[in-house]
């Protein structure tokens, strides 16, 4: 309290040494270790997991720092994914490719549902720049509307969680119900090229994997920038004592809305990359169940740790794939147990375990290597 604010800013480097090491480790694993160890199929799978970790990253900001638990991140993941899929689908359904349909030039599922003209909201998605813009802007706008409406009326906590969950349910029902416009329960499938570039080959999957990794690192750095800025500190302060922040004259609602929008944009980027990497999008990534599963990724990794969220996502998904391949029945027990265990015993996830058990030992080691003062450390014996 007695320190001048300027000195804290000086003592606040962009990342601490340990965080630089974590970043280097993550980059090494994503860009070197995994591509060397895994075959094309497995690498594509990891690419899919990486797209989920964007959502987990957003949740760290929104839930870990901001204290706003959204159970509707699938909505934004889905929005990003669907917007991207719309562009890809239009490109795949050129007049030439769809000449056996009764109306050539429109997506096949529209033709099956007796729609004879491209609906107005599909039309702009013939343009790639528009699509890329929409992937960011539409979810952000959507989150802004929800956030403003809720946070201005001081709706928070469990109420917010339930309402975001309801929104996820609504969007799923809407997508499944409006088959002719959205592809229904099957989603948008049979995607082929991105601006003429075939996305179905192993080589394309590989390149997309690296794009994914690059974007993820960029998002981590941006999140880190937000975390250490004044804004990030206000977010944390707000989480811990909302009233005090409000009485200090801050517009609490705007900060919360910002965190929610940022999380939405991260999720949408993940969704768009998911569509590219996996080659389809369906309502099963939008609803309540995937939305809550995405929360557990962040919870397992550590809701306060940006790197933890990525590790958590990779780990949970790896476990899911392994278990559901060999013991499909055990997986739900495992996932359910994981939810309970993390919440009861390790509320800060893997990052929390690392911080309480591993880091003190590491720093002790480092201290031991330094020319130690003559007085022995009192805890060294333990």
């Amino acid at each position: 309290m007695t320190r001048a604010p300027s000195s804290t800013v000086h003592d606040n480097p962009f990342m601490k040494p340990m965080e630089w090491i974590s970043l280097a480790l993550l980059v090494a694993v994503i860009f070197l270790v995994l591509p060397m160890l895994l075959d094309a199929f497995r690498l594509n799978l990891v690419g899919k997991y990486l797209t989920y970790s964007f959502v987990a990253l957003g949740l760290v900001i929104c839930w870990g720092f901001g204290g706003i638990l959204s159970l509707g991140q699938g909505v934004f993941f889905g929005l990003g994914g669907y917007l991207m899929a719309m562009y890809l689908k239009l490109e795949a359904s050129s007049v030439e490719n769809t000449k056996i349909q009764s109306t050539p030039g429109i997506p096949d599922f529209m033709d099956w549902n007796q729609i004879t003209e491209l609906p107005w909201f599909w039309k702009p998605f013939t343009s790639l720049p528009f699509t890329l813009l929409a992937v960011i802007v539409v979810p952000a706008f959507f989150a802004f509307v929800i956030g403003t409406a809720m946070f201005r009326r001081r709706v928070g906590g469990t109420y917010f969680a339930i309402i975001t969950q309801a929104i996820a349910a609504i969007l799923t029902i809407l997508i499944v119900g409006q088959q002719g416009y959205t592809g229904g329960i099957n989603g948008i499938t049979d995607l082929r090229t991105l601006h003429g570039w075939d996305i179905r080959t192993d080589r394309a999957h590989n390149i997309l994997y690296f794009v994914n990794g690059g974007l993820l690192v960029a998002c981590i750095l941006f999140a880190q920038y937000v975390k250490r800025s004044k804004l990030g500190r206000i977010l944390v302060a707000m989480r811990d004592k909302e009233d005090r922040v409000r009485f200090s004259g801050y517009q609490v609602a705007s900060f919360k809305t910002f965190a929610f929008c940022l999380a939405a944009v991260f999720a949408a980027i993940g969704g768009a990359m998911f569509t590219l990497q996996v080659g389809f999008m369906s309502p099963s990534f939008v609803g309540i169940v995937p939305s809550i599963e995405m929360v557990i990724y962040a919870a397992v990794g550590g809701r306060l740790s940006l790197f933890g969220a990525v590790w958590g996502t990779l780990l949970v998904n790896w476990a899911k794939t392994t278990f559901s391949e060999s013991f499909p029945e055990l997986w739900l027990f495992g996932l359910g147990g994981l939810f309970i265990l993390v919440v009861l015993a390790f509320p800060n996830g893997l990052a929390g375990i690392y911080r309480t058990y591993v880091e003190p030992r590491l720093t002790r080691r480092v201290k031991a290597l330094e020319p130690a003062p003559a007085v022995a450390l009192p805890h060294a014996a333990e």
Partner: protein
Amino acid sequence: MLGDYSLTDLSSIFVMQGFAGLILFSVYTLMALGLAIIFGQMGVINMAHGEFMILGAYMTYLCSGFFQTHLPALFPAYFFVAMALAFVASGALGMLVEWALIRHLYKRPLDTLLATWGLSLILQQAYRTIFGPREVGVELPSWLIGSVQVTDTIEIPINGMFVMAITLLITAGVALLMYRSRFGAQVRAVVQNRPMAGAVGIDTEKVDRLTFGLGCGIAGIAGSAFTMVGSTGPTSGQLYIVDTFLIVVFGGAASLLGTIASAFSISQTQSTLEFFLSGSTAKVITLLAVVGILMLRPQGLFTLKVRR
């Protein structure tokens, strides 16, 4: 949209759809009652509520099988036994869960949400392992089958009336328990001011556990009643959970009257719209309306002044 129907047709449609809505209302009310008690009392979001309901439904299914093979003479009355059993089973499991899980998390309401979600996954898989992945239905006793012909165009199914009667009884019972008994007075005291209630000698932990058990037990009865109008599968509970939460939030937490009013308005809107539009559109419009109203009036329809 209304042009093709004559006036008498329309009025019978409204009566029939209204009645279908009433059955939906009954199931919603029973489910939401338990949830409202738990949410209102402890601020705990129980995501596994649907699974407690399904436990009740499976209990009824087991009972129906048992009575059919071993006690066919008593079969017409098995339903009452099943309902009591459903209440006891769900209530006991609820109290166990409160003791093992929930009581450690009272200070972290968002975390209870995640933990109970985990519990719901485990229960779902347990049901799938024990009862198989397929939906099961119960054999109704003969006196519950059929319908009452009111006029030429209006007929009302008996099992629906029975479900409504049960709902009425349970609701009245809960209202009596909450507003006329010593236990109810304790519960309300704890809701209004927990430390003070503890200070005057109420065992708040015990009240919490009993309340949680009561809420889960009522969910069990809801599941038992549900078997009469639909079949039960391991994931049936999840279908209703969002609607039920919305009902509780929309009604205003901690208000029994609000819960009933919101269950009524939501189920009636949905079933009336369902007739004119497709089922999914009706659901979307109903949910959107509820979310929209909640954005304008986040405290819900009825509120209870609570000192925190």
